[in-house]
C-alpha cells in the first residue's frame, strides 16, 4: 500500500501551481489562490458527481468546458477560469439555478451565510430574465423532528442524499421523481432518523435544510462562532458553537481530519439545549438543596473532608485534564488518601495501561483510513463513540478495508463485516485468548474465522472497548503481540507508528478517560502514569470500602453512580454509608441529591480546559457561552478547595492549571496552548512524548505466557478490595466460544448490557432530542423468544435475585441463543440495577399489563 504522491505543475490563470497528481483541478486551483465556485463538489461525500456544473473551466486542448471538480490534474495542464467562455457558462449555471429558486432570502435562515447567495453575487449574471412561474412545494415541512425541509429552495446538489448513501450509509434519504420534479425525501414520507442526520444541514448550500432548533433564532450578524471540542463522548469531535447573547444557539461541525472528518453526531449537534435545562445546577448547594455561596460551600466541603483525612476517596468522570489533576492533588496531597479512580468499573492495572500507552502500539483515528483490517472488539462504536462508526465505514467503502467484529451484542457495523464473532457476556477474555491462540499457533477454535481475517493483513487496527474489562484487556495485549510476531513484516505504511503493524485504539467509557488517567486519576498511578508508593482502591473497591466503613468521605466529580454504574442498590448503600459526600455535577441527579455539598459543573460550551483524545491528542475546550447562574470554573473551585485544605497548587487561572498539569505529566511537557491550536496535538508526536514510562511487566516472558495459553492472573489486583468482584479467571478457557452460552432449555438467560447512545440527560433534559428517549427493551434471540413464548412488543419483567426491571421484548436475529440484552442508564428501568459485577443470569416473566 504505497501511496506515491507525484507532484505536477499546472498553470491556472497564468499562475504555476504545484499540485499532487490525481488531485482534482478545483483543489489544485485553490492552492494557487484561484477560487472556482462549486455546489455539488464535496470530497467528503465520495467521488465527485459533476452535477451542478458550476465549476466549469477551460482546459487548453479540450474543446468543451470541463468540470474542475472531477478533472484530475495532469502535468503541464493549462487552465483558464475567467475567460469569456467560462464566465458565460458560470452566468448560465447561476441563472439556471435561480430559474426555480424562490429568492425568499429575506425570510431564509441561510441568508447571509448562503453559498448560493455568495456565488450568485460573485459569478452570476447580475440580473434575471426569468418571468415564468416557479415550481412549488409545500414549505417548509418536517423531514425529521429536528430538520425542516424547504423543497422550493433546493438546488438539487444531492449533497444530503449522498451523505445518507455514502457516509452514514442509512440510505433513508433519497431523491424521488425525476427531472425538475425531483425532490429530496424519504420512503412513504417517514421521518429521516439517523444518529448523524444533522450533518445534512451543514452540507446544504442553500436554505433548504434547516434546523428547527435554529430557525429564526439569529442572523449571521447577530452571532459569534466559537471553536471548541464536544465532550459528550470519547470521540471528542471538533465543533463550532454559534453563540448569540452568550447562549449557544447552534452547534456546527468543525473539520479536523485527525478526529472527526468534519462530521458530528446528533448528540453533539442538538444536545446543547440541555445546557439551559431547569435541572441544571447553577450554584453551590448544601444537602436539601439550599443555595450557598461558593465561599461557604468551599469552607463546608473543606471542613467535612479534612475531618475524614485519609479516609476519603474520589471518583471522577466528566472532567478536563486540569480538573482531574486538581482532584488527584486534593485526594493525595491534601487528604492523604490513595483511593481514586476515573473508571466506572474495575479496569486493568497500571502495567497494562502502560503497555497500552506505548506510542508504537497506538493507532490513531487516521490509521483507520488506510488499515487493511479493522477489528472491532468489545464495543459498538455507534453507541459509544459514534464518529468512529462513520470512520470505519469510510475505510471499508473507500479504501477497501476489511472489517472483523467480535462483540457480545450485535453492532451497527455487522453489515459491513467479513467475519463476526459473538461471545457470551463475561467471556471476552476467553474469547480473546482463543483468538490469540488461533493467530499465534493456528489453533482451531471458535475464533478461527476471525483469525483468518487477521492473517495476511499488513496493517491492523483494533478498535476495542474499555468495557472489555481488566482481564480481557490483558489478553488484548497478548493478541497484539501475537499479531505483531506472526504478521507479515512487509507492507509497512506511513502514518502507522514505529515498527508495529498492529495498532490499538480504545473506545473508553467516558469522554476524557485517557486524559484523566494520564493526569493521575487512577488508583495505581499518579500524574504521568507514574508508579506510586502505595496503591489505592479503584471504583468498585471504593464502593465496598464505603459500605464496610473503611472509607468515610466521597468526592464525586462528573459522575452519577446511581445511574451509570453497575449494581445500583449497592452504590446506593455505599453513598448512604459515606458520612460526607462532595459532589460536582452539571445536573441535579439522584446522586447529586445525596451530596452534603454540591458544586455546579460547566458544560463543554462553557468550560476552559484540555482533554485528551483516546489516541493521545490533547485538545482544547474553549469557553464559548456564558456560564449560567453563579457557576464558576471547575479549576477555580477545585484550586480553592485545595487551598482551603491547606494544599496550595499555585493554580490561579486556567493557564496556570494547564502549566501545573504539563509540569506533572512528563510526556505532556512540550505541549503548549499554542501547539494545541485549533486541531490539537498528539503527545506521542511531541518531543516529550518519549518520556512515557516503560511498562513494568511488559516483558516477553509475560506475553509468551499469555500466548501459550496458560491462565493469567487477573491484573490490577491492587485495585481489588474486600469483597469486590473482578472478572475471575476460569478454567474452561479452551471452550471459550460463542456457544459457551447457557444451553437452550435452561430457565435463565445470561444478561448482557450496553450503553445506549440516547440514554441519559441528553434525551431526558433536552427537548429537541426527547423523541429519541429510549425505553427499556429486552433483546432476545428468535430461539429464546420462541421457547419463552414471547413476541416482539410483549411486556416482561426481568429479574435477578430479588431485583427486577420492566422491559418490552424485541427479537433480534443476530443474537445467539442463551443471552439477552438490556440497556444501561435508562431512567426507571436501568439495567445497572440487575448487575453485580459478576456475569449474571436473569429470569424473564411475561407481564400482563402493557407499560404506559
Amino acid at each position: 500500500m504505497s501511496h506515491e504522491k507525484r507532484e505536477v505543475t499546472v498553470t491556472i490563470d497564468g499562475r504555476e501551481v504545484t499540485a499532487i497528481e490525481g488531485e482534482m483541478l478545483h483543489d489544485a486551483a485553490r492552492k494557487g489562490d484561484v477560487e472556482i465556485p462549486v455546489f455539488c463538489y464535496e470530497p467528503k461525500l465520495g467521488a465527485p458527481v459533476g452535477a451542478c456544473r458550476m465549476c466549469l473551466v477551460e482546459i487548453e486542448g479540450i474543446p468543451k468546458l470541463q468540470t474542475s471538480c472531477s478533472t484530475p490534474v495532469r502535468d503541464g495542464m493549462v487552465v483558464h477560469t475567467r475567460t469569456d467562455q467560462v464566465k458565460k457558462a458560470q452566468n448560465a449555471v447561476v441563472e439556471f439555478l435561480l430559474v426555480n429558486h424562490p429568492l425568499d432570502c429575506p425570510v431564509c435562515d441561510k441568508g447571509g451565510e448562503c453559498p448560493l447567495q455568495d456565488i450568485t453575487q460573485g459569478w452570476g449574471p447580475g440580473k434575471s430574465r426569468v418571468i415564468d412561474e416557479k415550481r412549488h412545494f409545500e414549505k417548509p415541512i418536517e423531514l425529521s423532528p429536528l430538520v425542516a425541509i424547504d423543497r422550493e429552495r433546493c438546488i438539487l446538489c444531492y449533497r444530503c442524499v449522498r451523505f445518507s448513501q455514502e457516509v452514514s450509509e442509512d440510505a433513508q434519504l433519497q431523491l424521488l421523481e425525476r427531472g425538475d420534479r425531483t425532490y429530496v425525501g424519504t420512503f412513504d414520507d417517514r421521518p429521516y432518523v439517523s444518529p448523524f442526520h444533522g450533518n445534512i444541514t451543514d452540507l446544504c448550500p442553500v436554505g433548504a435544510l434547516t434546523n428547527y432548533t435554529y430557525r429564526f433564532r439569529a442572523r449571521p450578524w447577530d452571532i459569534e462562532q466559537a471553536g471548541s471540542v464536544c465532550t459528550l463522548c470519547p470521540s471528542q469531535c471538533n465543533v463550532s458553537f454559534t453563540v448569540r447573547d452568550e447562549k449557544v444557539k447552534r452547534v456546527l461541525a468543525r473539520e479536523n481530519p485527525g478526529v472527526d472528518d468534519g462530521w458530528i453526531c446528533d448528540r453533539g449537534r442538538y444536545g446543547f439545549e440541555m445546557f439551559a435545562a431547569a435541572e441544571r445546577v447553577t450554584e453551590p448547594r448544601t444537602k436539601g438543596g439550599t443555595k450557598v455561596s461558593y465561599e461557604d460551600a468551599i469552607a463546608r466541603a473543606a471542613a467535612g473532608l479534612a475531618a475524614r483525612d485519609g479516609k476519603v476517596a474520589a471518583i471522577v468522570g466528566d472532567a478536563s485534564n486540569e480538573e482531574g489533576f486538581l482532584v488527584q492533588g486534593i485526594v493525595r496531597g491534601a487528604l492523604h488518601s490513595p483511593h481514586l479512580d476515573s473508571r466506572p468499573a474495575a479496569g486493568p492495572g497500571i502495567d497494562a495501561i502502560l503497555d497500552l500507552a506505548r506510542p508504537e502500539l497506538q493507532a490513531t483515528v487516521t490509521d483507520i483510513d488506510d488499515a487493511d483490517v479493522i477489528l472491532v472488539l468489545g464495543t459498538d462504536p455507534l453507541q459509544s463513540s459514534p464518529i468512529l462508526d462513520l470512520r470505519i465505514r469510510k475505510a471499508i467503502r473507500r479504501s477497501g478495508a476489511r472489517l472483523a467484529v467480535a462483540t457480545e451484542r450485535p453492532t451497527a457495523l455487522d453489515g459491513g463485516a467479513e467475519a463476526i464473532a459473538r461471545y457470551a457476556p463475561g467471556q471476552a477474555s476467553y474469547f480473546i485468548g482463543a483468538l490469540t491462540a488461533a493467530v499465534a499457533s493456528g489453533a482451531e477454535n471458535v475464533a478461527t474465522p476471525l483469525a483468518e481475517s487477521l492473517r495476511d493483513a499488513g496493517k491492523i487496527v483494533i478498535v476495542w472497548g474499555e468495557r472489555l474489562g481488566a482481564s480481557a484487556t490483558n489478553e488484548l495485549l497478548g493478541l497484539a503481540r501475537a499479531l505483531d510476531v506472526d504478521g507479515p513484516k512487509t507492507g509497512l505504511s506511513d502514518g502507522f507508528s514505529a515498527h508495529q503493524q498492529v495498532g490499538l485504539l480504545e473506545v473508553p467509557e467516558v469522554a476524557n478517560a485517557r486524559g484523566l488517567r494520564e493526569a493521575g486519576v487512577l488508583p495505581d498511578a499518579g500524574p504521568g502514569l507514574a508508579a506510586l508508593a502505595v496503591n489505592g482502591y479503584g471504583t468498585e473497591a471504593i464502593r465496598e470500602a464505603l459500605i464496610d466503613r473503611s472509607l468515610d468521605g466521597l468526592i464525586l466529580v462528573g459522575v452519577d453512580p446511581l445511574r451509570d454504574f453497575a449494581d445500583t442498590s449497592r452504590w446506593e448503600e455505599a453513598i448512604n454509608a459515606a458520612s460526607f459526600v462532595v459532589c460536582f455535577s452539571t445536573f441535579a441527579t439522584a446522586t447529586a441529591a445525596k451530596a452534603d455539598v454540591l458544586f455546579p459543573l460547566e458544560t463543554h460550551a462553557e468550560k476552559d480546559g484540555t482533554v485528551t483524545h483516546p489516541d493521545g491528542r490533547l485538545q482544547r475546550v474553549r469557553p464559548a457561552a456564558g456560564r449560567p447562574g453563579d457557576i464558576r470554573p471547575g479549576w477555580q473551585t477545585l484550586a480553592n478547595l485545595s487551598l482551603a485544605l491547606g494544599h496550595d497548587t499555585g493554580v490561579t487561572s486556567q493557564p496556570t492549571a494547564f502549566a501545573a498539569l504539563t509540569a506533572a505529566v512528563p510526556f505532556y511537557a512540550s505541549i503548549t496552548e499554542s501547539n494545541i491550536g485549533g486541531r490539537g496535538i498528539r503527545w506521542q508526536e511531541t518531543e516529550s512524548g518519549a518520556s512515557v514510562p516503560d511498562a513494568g511487566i511488559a516483558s516477553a516472558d509475560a506475553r509468551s505466557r499469555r500466548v501459550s495459553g496458560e491462565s493469567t492472573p487477573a491484573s490490577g489486583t491492587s485495585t481489588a478490595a474486600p469483597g469486590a468482584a473482578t472478572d475471575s479467571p476460569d478454567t474452561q478457557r479452551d471452550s471459550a466460544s460463542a456457544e459457551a452460552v447457557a444451553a437452550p432449555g435452561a430457565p435463565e438467560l445470561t444478561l448482557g448490557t450496553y450503553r445506549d447512545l440516547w440514554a441519559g440527560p441528553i434525551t431526558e433534559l433536552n427537548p429537541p432530542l426527547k423523541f429519541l428517549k429510549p425505553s427499556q427493551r429486552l433483546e432476545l434471540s428468535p430461539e429464546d423468544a420462541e421457547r419463552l413464548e414471547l413476541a416482539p412488543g410483549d411486556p416482561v419483567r426481568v429479574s435477578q435475585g430479588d431485583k427486577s426491571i420492566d422491559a418490552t421484548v424485541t427479537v433480534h436475529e443476530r443474537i445467539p441463543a442463551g443471552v439477552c440484552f438490556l440497556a444501561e442508564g435508562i431512567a426507571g428501568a436501568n439495567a445497572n440495577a440487575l448487575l453485580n459485577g459478576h456475569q449474571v443470569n436473569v429470569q424473564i416473566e411475561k407481564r400482563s399489563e402493557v407499560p404506559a
Partner: protein
Amino acid sequence: MPHALETRVLLEHAEDPRLATLQGYKELVDGYSTLEKAYRSMEQDEVLKALEDSGLRGRGGAGFAMGKKASFLPRGDMEKYLCCNADESEPGAFKDRELMQRNPHQLIEGIAIAALAAGIGRAFIFIRGEYDRQADILDAAVLEAYEAGYLGEDILGTHRNLELVVHRGAGAYICGEETALLDALEGKRGNPRLKPPFPAVQGLYGGPTLINNVETLSNVPRIVAKGADWFRQYGTEQSPGTKVVSISGGVRRPGNYEISLGLPTRDLIYELAGGPLPGRSVKAIYPGGSSSPVLTAAEAMDLPYSFEAMAEAGSMLGSGSVIVADDTVSIPHMALRTARFYHHESCGKCTPCREGTNWTVKMLERVVRGEATPMDLDIISSVQENIMGHCLCVLGDSMAMPVSAMVRKFRGEFEQVMAAGEAEHGIDPHLVVDLSPEALGAAS
C-alpha cells in the same frame, strides 16, 4: 415486397414470421453458422479486425466506429460486460423494435460474436420497458439459444462462456444514454455518469463494458461471415453498410426501410415513404430523430442520407429516424412538443438540462399562447446556447439543437404565432392573422 430502392440485409426475410424462431433463423438465413465458425475457429483478434475493417458505425446515435470501441476494452482476465442498448426511446425511432421483434436471433448471434471479439463473458440486453412484447420475444429466443448451446457455459464445447440476460427498463428515455443505462442496470435511478472514465474502461459494476445499439450488433454476424469488403459495398466511404431508417410523421407510408447509406433523402421520403399526404407538402424534417437539428425541405431533399452529409448540413443522422413535418404543422408547436419531451425526460442531475428544459418549455408555452415578445425568442435562443456544451450528458443539447434550429430557421413563423396568440387572447385586437396552414408556411 421490398421497394427497389431498399437494400434488405438486416431485414432479409423479415416478413416471414418463422425468422423469429431458432429453426426459422437457421433455415432462412443460415443463422448461427457465423457464431459456430467464430467460436470454433477464429481468434479474438481476427473477429475484432473484421469489425474494425468494416467501418461499421454505431447505429444508436453517436455514430462511433464499433470495432474501434470494442478494441478499447482492456485485455485480461477481469470480468467484462457487453450491454446491448435496446432502449430506443428517441422520438421518431422504431427500427430496433422491428429488428428485435422480427429477427431476435440475429441480435443474439451478433452479441455473442461481439462478446468474443472483446473477450466478454457476460452480456445484457437493456430493453425499454414499453417494448414488453419484444422483450417476451427476446426472452424466448434467448432461451432457445441457451438450449441450442449458443449461449451459456462452454459454448459448442469451445470452453468459451457467455451469459445473456434480457433486462427490462421501466420508462425513462435517459436510460438510452450509455452511462445512465449502466446505472439503471445496476438497479439505480438512470442518471448518466461523469465521463471519463469511459465505459470501455470502467463501466458496469466497474468493469470494462462495451455498449452498442441493437442495429449495430445485428450487423455483426454478416460482417464476420462475409467480410469487411462485402459490407463496404453498401453505403459510402464514411458511412458503410445498410441502415434501417424509421420514417414517420407526414408521409403516406411511415415505417422502417433498409437502405444503402447515401441514398438521396428525397428518395427516402418520396419513393420509399410515399411522400407527403395528398394535398400537402413537406415543410421540414428531423433527419436523425428528434434531437437532430431540423432541416427545411429545401435544405434536406438533395442531401445523401449519410452520417457525413447530415453533419455537413449542420444536422446529424443520429439513430437514422426521419420525422417529416408537412405544411400543416406549426413549427412553434412542434418546438414546444420537442422541448416538452426533453423536459419530461431530463434526469434532473445536472443544472443546465434540468432547468434549461423546463424554462424553455415555459417560454415556448408563452409563445404559443401569445404571451411572449420577440425578445423572448432571443432569450430562448440564448438559453439553448447556455445549455449546449454545459451539461453532464447530451440530453440537454438534444433539446437545444433542434429548438434553436427551429427558432433560427422559422423565426417569422414564431412571430406570427405569437401575434396570433395575442389576438386570440385579446391582447392586441388590431392584429388580424390568418391561422391557416398556408398562411403559416415555412419561412424558408
